[in-house]
């Protein structure tokens, strides 16, 4: 599948590198702004995202007829301010996205290193499990787990982490396999270093690059996964604001023409994912051209 | 005198970059003649333009390349005036080519028989059964044992030497008059190389083929070829009968090439190499392309490109050293 990414990669990279000295200004700006919104949500958001005024339901955005400046982007079916919910939703997306990617990364990298380094039956067992896990659709699995443990932010992070670690394991294992043949690792083995030391000091630093690139690529996928789970009702528990949840609510009002309840959260998701993907592609080219294989 | 089979006159092929800013003169003003049944060796380092020359003759150049001038007279007809359809009828049928890497040349998804029979079916309209029979005969002609079973095999099941023979079989399948072999033995084991060259010579004699043998190996040239053409940076710096050139090379580059071959009984400890690197074709030095590395360089060589001078019977070189008095 390597060639397939090459062509969109060039375009993506050009878009992403649109900035001084080729740094991906736009994606970074988007991510930074979103992070700021997430962190300072309490101060920036004009209204409480979870409590609404029922008398102000379904107000359209300020620039449309019927809208007011109090609710810049309109209100939803419970009279809650859309703008505030979007801002707080950013917090949820970032937290879940960030931590899920880290959890998945840690598990996956660890297993990948162990599997690649020890080889033999350890490798076989881990790889079989990974293959089975991978073959299983992430979302269905996530839904399954969510149905068992119930919705909450922590559960969500754990579930997404548990579902997405396999991608890391596969790739890292491959890298470890080729690293094992390199002289500095062989020397360390000959010098009778403990396995743990070798893995920690020699192998880990060399696979970190790939792990980071994978993580940035996964971020987009994870955000979409969280949004999907919330949309289906097994993600973030209401009344907590999440973009996916807003889409689910918004769907009900679509037939009546309340477009802002779906278009706006969706655009947020799209921008976030686009930024993550562009950043990931840029990182991939920057950190190690060999990683174009990913 | 019999008309020559192939005549190249002032042939030039240039690669032009996308914006038209950079021009690489991959083949620069090449003139040579080849008679029927003769063998011509084309020698040069990588990037000297040998393969581009071959592809130019067959007019199968990539999109960025352009044949800017010259003539290619094959059996009296100028190939540069032919339409695409006419060229296609010539390729594989009247002029054939063997590429360097036999594994890569054969399509992994089709059987050997299918691929050998293919040109026969396309060029001569033979039905499948008849073409299959011809394919079997061809495999026998290139000395492949158990031809019948081999026909049904896939390329990855055969050894490198056998694959190259099959490529040879494909090449002669429609009875071409000219065969161009682009480094056919470079990717073969040394032990197999000799056998393959022997095969090529036999096929040549049996079918009256003219052969253009592209190589960087002067030893092969000495064994196989009647004529030799030496290429450097896209230009043909010397050409002529093999024994004449080997005995008395006129161009300093040819001389350096011959000297760099280690000989049995040499007592020198170090290998003789040619100083310097081949030029970057994008930024060529002015005048004679070889002058930065030439031990006999004169002032003239820096600024003026030498034209072809006749050195002896049938031998010519592009070097100011060979210029007759008064030029």
């Amino acid at each position, binding site marked *: 599948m390597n060639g397939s990414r090459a062509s969109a990669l060039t375009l993506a990279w050009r878009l992403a590198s649109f900035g001084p000295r080729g740094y991906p200004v736009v994606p970074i700006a988007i991510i930074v702004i979103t992070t700021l919104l997430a962190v300072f949500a309490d101060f920036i958001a004009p209204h409480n995202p979870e409590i609404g005024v029922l008398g102000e339901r379904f107000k359209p955005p300020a620039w449309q007829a019927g809208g007011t400046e109090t609710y810049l982007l309109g209100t939803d079916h419970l009279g809650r301010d859309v703008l505030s919910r979007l801002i707080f939703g950013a917090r949820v997306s970032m937290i879940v996205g960030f931590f899920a990617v880290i959890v998945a990364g840690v598990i996956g990298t660890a297993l990948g290193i162990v599997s690649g380094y020890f080889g033999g039956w350890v490798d076989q067992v881990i790889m079989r499990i990974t293959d089975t896990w991978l073959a299983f659709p992430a979302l269905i699995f996530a839904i399954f*787990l969510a149905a068992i443990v119930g919705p909450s932010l922590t559960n969500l992070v754990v579930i997404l982490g548990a579902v997405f670690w396999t991608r890391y394991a596969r790739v890292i294992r491959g890298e470890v396999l080729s690293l094992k043949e390199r002289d500095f690792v062989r020397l360390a083995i000959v010098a009778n270093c403990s396995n743990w030391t070798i893995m920690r000091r020699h192998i880990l630093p060399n696979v970190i690059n790939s792990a980071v690139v994978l993580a940035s690529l996964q971020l987009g996928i994870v955000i979409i996964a969280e949004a999907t789970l919330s949309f289906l009702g097994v993600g973030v528990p209401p009344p907590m604001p999440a973009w996916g949840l807003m889409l689910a609510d918004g769907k009900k009002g679509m037939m009546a023409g309340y477009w802002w309840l779906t278009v706006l959260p969706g655009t947020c998701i799209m921008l976030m994912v686009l930024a993550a993907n562009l950043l990931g592609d840029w990182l991939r080219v920057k950190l190690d051209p060999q990683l174009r294989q990913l | 005198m019999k008309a020559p089979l192939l005549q190249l006159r002032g042939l030039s092929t240039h690669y032009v970059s996308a914006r038209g800013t950079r021009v690489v003169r991959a083949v620069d003003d090449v003139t040579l003649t080849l008679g029927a049944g003769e063998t011509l060796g084309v020698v040069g380092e990588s990037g000297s333009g040998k393969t581009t020359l071959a592809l130019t003759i067959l007019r199968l150049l990539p999109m960025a390349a352009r044949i800017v001038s010259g003539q290619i007279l094959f059996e009296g007809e100028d190939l540069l005036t032919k339409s695409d359809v006419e060229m296609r009828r010539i390729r594989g049928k009247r002029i054939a080519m063997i590429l360097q890497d036999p594994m890569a040349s*054969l399509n992994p998804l089709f059987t050997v028989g299918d691929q050998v029979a293919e040109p026969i079916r396309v060029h001569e309209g033979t039905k499948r059964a008849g073409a299959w029979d011809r394919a079997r005969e061809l495999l026998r002609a290139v000395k492949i044992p158990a031809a019948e079973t081999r026909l049904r095999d896939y390329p990855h099941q055969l050894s490198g030497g056998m694959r190259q023979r099959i490529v040879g079989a494909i090449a002669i399948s429609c009875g071409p008059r000219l065969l161009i072999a682009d480094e056919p033995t470079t990717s073969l084991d040394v032990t197999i190389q000799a056998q393959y060259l022997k095969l090529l010579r036999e096929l040549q004699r049996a079918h009256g083929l003219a052969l253009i043998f592209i190589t960087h190996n002067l030893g092969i040239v000495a064994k196989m070829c009647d004529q030799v053409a030496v290429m450097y940076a896209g230009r043909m710096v010397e050409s002529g009968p093999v024994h004449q050139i080997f005995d008395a090379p006129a161009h300093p580059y040819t001389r350096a090439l011959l000297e760099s071959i280690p000989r049995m009984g040499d007592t020198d400890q170090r290998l003789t190499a040619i100083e310097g690197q081949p030029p970057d074709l994008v930024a060529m030095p002015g005048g004679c392309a070889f002058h930065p590395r030439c031990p006999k360089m004169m002032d003239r060589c820096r600024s003026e490109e030498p034209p072809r001078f006749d050195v002896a019977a049938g031998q010519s070189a592009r070097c100011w050293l060979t210029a007759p008095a008064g030029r």
Partner: protein
Amino acid sequence: MKRYLVKRIGYSLISLFLLSVIIFFFVRVTGDPAVLLVEPGASQADLDAVRQQLGLDKSMGVQYVTFVTDLLRGDFGNSFYYRMPVLELYLSRLPNSLLLAACAMLFSLFIGIPSGILAAVRLGGWWDRVGKIFALLGQSLPSFWVGLMLILFFSVHLGWLPSSGSGTVWHVLMPAFALGWLFAAAHMRLTRSSMLEVLGSEYVKLARLKGLPEAMVIAKHAFKNALIPVLTLAGINLVIMVNTTVVVETVFAWPGVGRLLYEGISFRDFPVVQVTVVLCGAMIVTVNLIVDVLYAVIDPRIRYE
């Protein structure tokens, strides 16, 4: 070939086994699966009855064996909401999902492959550039949002297409598009680069040197080779597609197994969730096996591995 088949089937069986273990494990991990498998609002007696039935007092090994034998017998329990065996329920919805997936996959292949070939053969052209943008967007837009936007535009705004349900060709159009478009982009990109690689290969060069007509070079020599990676991708994408069916069916209220899963979650109907997950996994393992066999049929090199 036979050895390859046997090996692949062996792997599939191992995967199925692992799958059952994983599912079993996760259901049991909460401590008291009886809570999941019993209707909400059930009495203590009901809970005890279920515990007995599941044999929760017995060892894990025995429980697992019971679990698997039940599965193999087709006993997946009953749905609380629909009050019927879940297996039946699942099987009744399955054809709808298959239909949708087939339409979406066909759509993505029929759009993706030819445009990929076109883009490769006419490199740098208009088609090529449009394709690249299409591909980039495809990755960043969640399909359920695409579905929602489609509904917004075609149903609410224009009133041309029905926004939910199934039954006619008109009903299938938007869901198939929402489901398939992301794959169309991916297939197009892959076909394009695969085709480019193949067109630059030595055997294509030799085919041209043989004097074969260009159409034959592309259709016979290039196409089959270029298709191999696309097939792999299609196989992998099938798995992702199953993911996406859940949301697309929910958005469009398409009566398939994806929507069944959604209902299972909404109504806290765990047996439904469980059966969907188990059968989904089994289906994927089977489909992967089929794809691998197809592979071997097309590419002779695989057969001799």
